[in-house]
């Protein structure tokens, strides 16, 4: 089972986790990214996520294939939320099952680390002072 989805709807991580459970797997790792209130001392009210959907999906498929070449993955499912997210909401859910726990932890960590480095999705902070700011690591200065 392999699943990669972009969605504008709230993420059902239980359904995602059930997708990867298997009699072949002794370990499931689920990662959730959630909208955190404080970032470097500033208060966030909400995030907006934008994506380049076709390339985001193909890049996630690529990353998943890389992970499969390194760890014996039984099943994996990734869903990324797009649009407007309130505090505490889930922006990404990633579930992976393997025979043993070390594999599941390492594969899960690889998937989220690579996804954050390479998948063309962007978030915009909605700060509590009314300003908004695209988050572009390494690019200079604040935006609008």
């Amino acid at each position, binding site marked *: 089972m392999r699943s990669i989805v972009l969605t504008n709807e709230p993420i059902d991580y239980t359904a995602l986790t059930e997708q990867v459970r298997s009699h072949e797997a002794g370990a499931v790792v689920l990662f959730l990214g959630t909208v955190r209130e404080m970032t470097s001392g500033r208060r966030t009210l909400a995030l907006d996520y934008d994506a380049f959907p076709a390339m985001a999906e193909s890049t996630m498929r690529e990353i998943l294939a890389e992970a499969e070449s390194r760890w014996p993955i039984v099943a994996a499912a990734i869903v990324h939320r797009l649009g407007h997210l309130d505090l505490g909401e889930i922006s*990404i859910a990633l579930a992976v099952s393997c025979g043993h726990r070390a594999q599941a932890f390492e594969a899960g960590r690889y998937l989220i680390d690579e996804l954050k480095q390479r998948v063309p999705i962007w978030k915009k902070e909605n700060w509590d002072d009314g300003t908004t700011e695209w988050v572009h690591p*390494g*690019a200079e200065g604040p935006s609008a």
Partner: protein
Amino acid sequence: MNVRVRLFARARDLAGAEFVEVSLSEPALVSDLRRELLARHPALTPLGPTLLVAIDNQYARDDAVVGPASDVACFPPVSGG
């Protein structure tokens, strides 16, 4: 040739458009596209060195070739997850 470039995130906001056009003489490389894009859309200058270019849904290096049929996108560093 005219190449249509799709912009995302702050690049789209700065340019004020989701799509912009740049004229390139063939053969053209990603580095040529990058130079022309900033010349025609100076609003993108703050992002200049960090802008990423994708051709046909794959990241493209500066020495990759841009053709008339290339599906080109340009965007700042990603921050999903």
